C-alpha cells in the first residue's frame, strides 16, 4: 500500500474539515483502518447528524477501492439499515486510483442528499422511500436524532469512565470526539496510541 499517499490524503482532507464536513482519522498508527466522518447535508433528514464511517484499505490501495461502511445507523435506501453497507459504484467497479478517500466520502455525502432508490442496498427502505415518502423522511430524521447526534449524550460519563482507566482527560475527549462518542472505539484508539 502507498503509505505516503494515505498520509498525504489524511493531511489534505483534514485541512478544510470545517468547510467540507469530511474528516478522516487513523485509528492509532494503523493506516489500513481509518475512521471517516461526514456531516449530514443541510436540507435533508440527515441534517445535524454526524455519521461515522469505517474505512479499511487493502494492500492494493489506491489501485483497489477502499472498503467503507457506516458505523452510525442510518435510514437510507442505498445504505443497509442492518449493517451500514453502502451501495455506491465508485466503491466497486467504478473506482479509479485517481479518486481519494476524501472524494469517496464526499460521494457518500452526496448520496445522502440524492438517494438512488432504483439501485437499493436496503429494499425495505427503498420501498418506503418510493411508496411512503413522508414516513421515510420521518424515520430517517428520527434515526439521525437517535443515532447520529450522540456526541454529547452522556459524554461526561464516558469521559469519566475512561479517565478512571488511566488515560489523560485531554486525550479521552479528543478520542471520543473523533469516534463520534463511541466508547469502545475511543478505548481502542487510546490503547493503540
Amino acid at each position: 500500500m502507498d503509505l505516503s499517499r494515505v498520509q498525504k490524503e489524511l493531511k489534505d482532507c483534514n485541512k478544510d474539515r470545517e468547510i467540507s464536513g469530511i474528516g478522516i482519522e487513523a485509528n492509532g498508527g494503523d493506516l489500513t483502518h481509518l475512521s471517516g466522518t461526514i456531516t449530514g447535508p443541510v436540507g435533508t433528514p440527515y441534517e445535524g447528524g454526524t455519521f461515522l464511517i469505517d474505512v479499511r484499505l487493502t494492500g492494493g490501495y489506491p489501485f483497489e477501492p477502499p472498503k467503507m461502511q457506516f458505523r452510525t445507523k442510518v435510514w437510507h435506501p442505498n445504505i443497509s439499515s442492518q449493517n451500514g453497507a453502502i451501495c455506491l459504484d465508485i466503491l466497486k467497479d467504478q473506482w479509479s486510483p485517481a479518486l481519494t478517500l476524501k472524494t469517496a466520502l464526499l460521494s457518500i455525502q452526496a448520496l445522502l442528499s440524492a438517494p438512488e432508490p432504483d439501485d437499493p442496498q436496503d429494499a425495505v427502505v427503498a420501498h418506503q422511500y418510493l411508496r411512503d415518502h413522508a414516513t421515510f423522511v420521518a424515520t430517517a430524521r428520527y434515526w439521525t436524532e437517535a443515532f447520529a447526534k450522540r456526541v454529547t449524550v452522556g459524554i461526561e460519563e464516558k469521559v469519566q469512565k475512561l479517565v478512571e482507566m488511566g488515560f489523560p482527560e485531554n486525550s479521552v475527549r479528543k478520542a471520543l470526539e473523533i469516534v463520534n462518542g463511541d466508547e469502545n472505539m475511543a478505548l481502542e484508539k487510546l490503547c493503540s496510541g
Partner: protein
Amino acid sequence: MEEFDYLSSGEEEEDCESLDGIESDDQRWTSTSLSSTQVITEESLLAAQVEDLHRVMDLLTVREQHARTLLIYHRWDIDRLIAAFVEKGREWLFSEAGVTMVESRNSASSWSSSPIMCEICIEEVPPNSVTTMDCGHCFCNDCWTEHFIVKINDGQSKRVRCMAHKCNAICDEDIVRKLVSEKNPSIADRFKRFLLESYIEDNKKVKWCPSVPHCGNAIRVDGDAYCEVECTCGKQFCFSCSLEAHSPCSCPMWDLWVKKCQDESESVNWMTANTKPCPKCNKPVEKNGGCNLVSCICGQPFCWLCGGATGRDHTWSSIAGHSCGRYNAADKAKRAETDLYRYMHYYNRFKGHMDSLTLETKLKASIQEKVSIVESKNFGNKDYSWVINGLYRLFRSRRVLSYSYPFAFYMFGEDLFGDDMTEKIREMKKNLFEDQQQQLESHVEKLSSLLEEKFDEFTEEKIRDLRMHVINFSVSVDGLCLKMYECIENDLLGPLQHAIHNIAPYNSKGIEKASELPIFQDTSANLKSTKITGANNALPRASTTNEKRATDSSQPSSSGLLRESSSMDENICSTRKRSRKDGRGDTLIDLNLPTWVVDKNGF
C-alpha cells in the same frame, strides 16, 4: 448400376479412385483440403488472431492494439463490427469500445523537462518516468504498473481501463506489456496469454476442444455452427453444444436424453407405478396384472388405485363396499408405466446399436488380418479397400442409427412437441420415420454380417461376389442415412414452430476432421502442400474414436494397402455433403492465413 459396371471391368485404377463406390465423384474427393473447420493450436493461435486483426487494421486504418480492443469489444465478430461502423460511424464505434486517439501523443510529456506531479501517488516525478495514454491522461510509470497488475490479477486483462476517473479508454496493450514485464515478467506473460485466449473465449466461431485431459486445441468453424468436428487429438464433438457428436439428434434433445439416462427417477417412477404400500403393514406390494384388487402377504386386500383397505369381494370393475370412484378411471400410475415402457423401447435400441458399434470396432483388427491373408494369395484383383471402406461405412451408419432413437423418442413424444402436431399427423410422421429407420436398420445389419464373412477362406470368385455386395450395401446404407437426415430436417423439424432444433448436416464421409491451421514456419512451403502435409501429419496420431484409420503396426506394407490408407485418410477428412463453400483457392487463402503471410508468399 454404376458400381456393377466398373466392377465387371475389373480394372484396378478405377477401384482406388472410387474406393467403396460411394465417393465416386471427384469433386468431393478433392475438396477434402477445403475444410471449413480448423484446429487452432497453441502455436497457431497467434496466426489465427493476426488474420482478423489485420482485416480490421486495414479496414479502419488503426494500430493493432486498437483493432484488438475493437474486436474484443465486438467479440471477434468482424461482421458485427463492420455493421456498427457503417451504422453509427467511426467515432461512435471507437468511443463505445474505449478506443481514443489523440493526435499529438507525445506532447504531454515532451514539452516540459520539469518534474511532473503524478496525481495518483501525489509525488513529483521526472518527465521521463511518466506515461501518457492515448486518452491524454498522464501518470507515473510506477502507478500505471501497479494499476495494470491489479487489473490483470483481477482477470480484467481484456479491458484494462485508464486510471483517470470516468475515463473509458482502454490502455495501450504495448504499454501494459512493457511496463508490467519490467516489474513482473510472469504477470506480463499472463496478460499476453489472456489477450490471445480472448480470441477463443470471446469468439462464437471458436470453441475449446472438450477433450479431457484437454489437448490444448481450439476449433474454429467458418460456416454453420451446427456441425460436428474432430479435433486433431481425436476428440469428436458437436460444435454447437460441445457434447459428443449426436446427430441426427438435436442439441436440446441430446441434452435431455443424457439427463434422462442419468436420471434414476425413471426407475423410481417404475417403483411407484408397480408397488404400493399395504394399508395395514406398509410393506410394498407389487401388482402383477389382473384386476385392481391386490393382496399383501399379510393378508390385507386393498384397492390398487386409492391404496385403501377393502374387503375381498370384488368384480372386474368394483369392490364390494368400496367406492373410491377411481377403480376404473385412467390413472397416473398407468401413465408413468407407459412412459417408462416407451423410454425403455427407445433406450434399448439406442444402447443396442452403440454396443454393436463397440463390437464392430473390434472387428477391424481381424478384418485386416483377413485382408493380408487374401493379399498373399495373388488373386487378380489386389485392391481390398472395399473391405475397410465398408467397415467405416458400417461404423458411421451404426452411429446414425443409434442416435436416431433418442431423436425419435423426443420427436414423437409428448415432452417437446406435444402441442406442435395433431395426434393423427404425429402418427403419420412417426410411421414414415420408422419405415426409414427400419430399412436402414436391416441394411446396416446386412452390411455387418457381410463384413463378418470369413472371406480369407473364399475363392477368388466368391470374393468378387462379396465385394459387390459390400459395395452395394455401403451405397444403399449411405443413401438411407442421407434420406433420414433429409426427412428429419425437412419433414420433421422443419415445420416446427420453434426453430431451436437444428441438426448437423449429414456427412457421408463421417465427422469432419478439422485441418490444422498453418503456422508461421510452414509458410515458406507452398500453401497447398502445407495443407496436405497437415492432413498426413494428423494421420498417425492416436485416436479414441470409432473411425480410427488403419494405422496399426500390424498393417502389411503392400502397395495396395498403403494406397488404401492414404485414400482412407482423404475419405475421412471430408467436408460436409452440403458444402458451404464451393471451389477452391482465394477464399481459402483469405480465411486461413494472416494477410501478411499471404503477402509474403506472393499469393
